[in-house]
């Protein structure tokens, strides 16, 4: 297994080169340039200065030359210097990454708990009213535009009920764990809801298959209580394929975080990406996109490893 993981990690290196090349070309070819940021807010800027600004950043050079320069910066570890803040990109990303990982992690757990509960019950009571209701509820998460749902929750829980804070990660000056958790509730709820449906549906159909399998029938025939049959034997086996899908979706959570962070002013890298794109901050964009790609690749690997670890029939070597 270790050798397998090692090989997969090695394979990522050429893949990352390919990805970086594609991304660099895509970003550079997008119309507009970093000088546009100077005009933010309608500020009057001597238009001739914009060219001087481009020259200072080096974005007036040929794209291949810029790529080589960026590659040098990337390989040396700091990923270049952000145009807008003059800081090393690696530092900016590391400052923001914990907030994103926390939001993703908590949302993942929340979604997994809800999806497993919903999936099991939908399978056990297939075609019951609850099955349909649960499915409908979880489908809401797929069918609601994320930003709309987020604003509705803000209005209900933040403005009307005043139960929960609306934005940020904590009340400045009154830091406590419970205060932080309160700030996390709405963004995590919004980000997690989208995944409940897919996972619970997947678990439902997986469990339905397992429940008809021979060993479950045997367990039932031995007179074991239904709770034990479902809870111990069936669910464990049904979860195997679901868990790998969940791990794959971890990467997708990163995409979802872009919108969620923007709406809830959550200081993660998703929101930073949106700002970087508007400002055409090429080094920062590259850094975030590459980080996202590494995360996708790693989560894919995790999915495969988890699958192998859970399913004794699969062995990688």
């Amino acid at each position, binding site marked *: 297994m270790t050798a397998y993981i090692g090989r997969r990690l090695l394979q990522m290196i050429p893949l990352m080169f390919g990805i970086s090349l*594609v991304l660099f070309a895509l970003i550079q070819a997008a119309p507009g340039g970093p000088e546009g940021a100077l005009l933010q807010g309608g500020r009057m800027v001597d238009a001739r200065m914009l060219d001087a600004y481009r020259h200072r950043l080096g974005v007036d050079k040929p794209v291949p030359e810029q790529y080589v320069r960026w590659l040098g910066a990337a390989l040396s570890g700091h990923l270049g210097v952000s145009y807008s803040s003059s800081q090393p990109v690696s530092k900016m990303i590391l400052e923001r990454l914990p907030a994103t990982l926390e939001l993703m992690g908590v949302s993942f757990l929340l979604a997994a708990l809800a999806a497993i509960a919903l999936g099991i019950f939908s399978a056990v009571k*297939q*075609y019951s009213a609850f099955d349909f209701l649960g499915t409908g509820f979880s489908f*809401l998460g797929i069918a609601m535009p*994320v930003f709309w749902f987020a604003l509705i929750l803000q209005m209900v829980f933040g403005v009307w009920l005043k139960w929960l804070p609306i934005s940020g990660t904590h009340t400045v000056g009154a830091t406590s764990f419970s205060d932080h958790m309160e700030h996390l509730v709405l963004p995590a709820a919004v980000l997690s809801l989208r995944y409940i449906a897919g996972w619970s549906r997947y678990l439902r159909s997986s469990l339905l298959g397992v429940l008809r399998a021979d060993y479950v029938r045997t367990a039932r025939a031995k007179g074991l209580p239904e709770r034990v049959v479902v809870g111990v034997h069936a669910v464990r086996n049904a979860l195997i394929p679901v868990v790998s899908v969940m791990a794959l979706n971890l990467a997708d959570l990163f*995409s979802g975080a872009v919108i969620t962070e923007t709406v809830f002013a959550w200081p993660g890298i998703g929101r930073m990406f949106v700002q970087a794109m508007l400002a055409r901050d090429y080094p920062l964009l590259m850094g975030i*996109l590459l980080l996202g*790609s590494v995360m996708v690749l790693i989560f894919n690997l995790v999915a495969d490893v988890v699958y192998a670890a859970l399913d004794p029939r699969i062995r990688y070597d």
Partner: protein
Amino acid sequence: MTDEPRSPAAEIWRQLRRHKPAMVSLVVFLVIAAACLAAPVIAPYPFDAINLTGIRQAPSLHHLMGTDDLGRDLFTRVLYGGRISILIGILSAVLGTGLGTLVGALAGYYGGRIDSLLMRVTDVAYAIPALPLLIVLASYTQAGVGSMAVIIGLLSWMGTARVVRGEVLSLRSAVFVEAARALGASSGRIIGRHILPNAVGPIVVGATLAVGNAIIVESSLSFLGLGVQPPIPTWGNLLQDATSTMATNPWLTIFPGLAILVVVLAVNFLGDGLQDALDPTGRST
């Protein structure tokens, strides 16, 4: 299961008809899509009839869904917006699924170096986080209907490609494929006539869900200011443009929001029903 053998399509339809939510969803979807398609006929006003003396009016008999920030009839806007949103959904789903099917079928059928090359490309495309890449691509062009459909489609073929490749791999040495090959059928014919029809299940389910997904993605891009832009209405930009007054003029968000919600729900229930109809393990006992 005492019926005589039927064609796969008829069998799927028979299964699907028993799935009530899916059938209700299909009807709802078709009704909404038909209404949007018929917008020029049934809409009570021109879609760009501005009336500054009557902006943000509450729903009334004259304006069933009220009026928007330029005094235009929201019901009309929602109908026209639906044409665009559903069109983007269907176009991008067809494009994404078509591309994915093509890539997957070629990779699975030919195997070897073609397979590994195509799968590497798929890996690269899959590894770049989707929404950030969409944001980059959306800044390329004037945000129109066609470009939006193409961009969303281009980013949603990888899943289909992998699934189809798997199906084709498992089918290419099946007896009936070998038979067709022995009879001298061309590769294209074998893929098109013999292999793909047997892999149609997951393709159709994937395409169905992709329609809903594309509608949601367009609305997300609208939120970021990168979706299809006014004066062309879409459900996404109608919703986004109204959010700034959602507390004072709630109907302006509720109607386009509900339109998205209902159609995407319907599409997902339909996909769910198709899944059940196609998946032998999920069949009702």
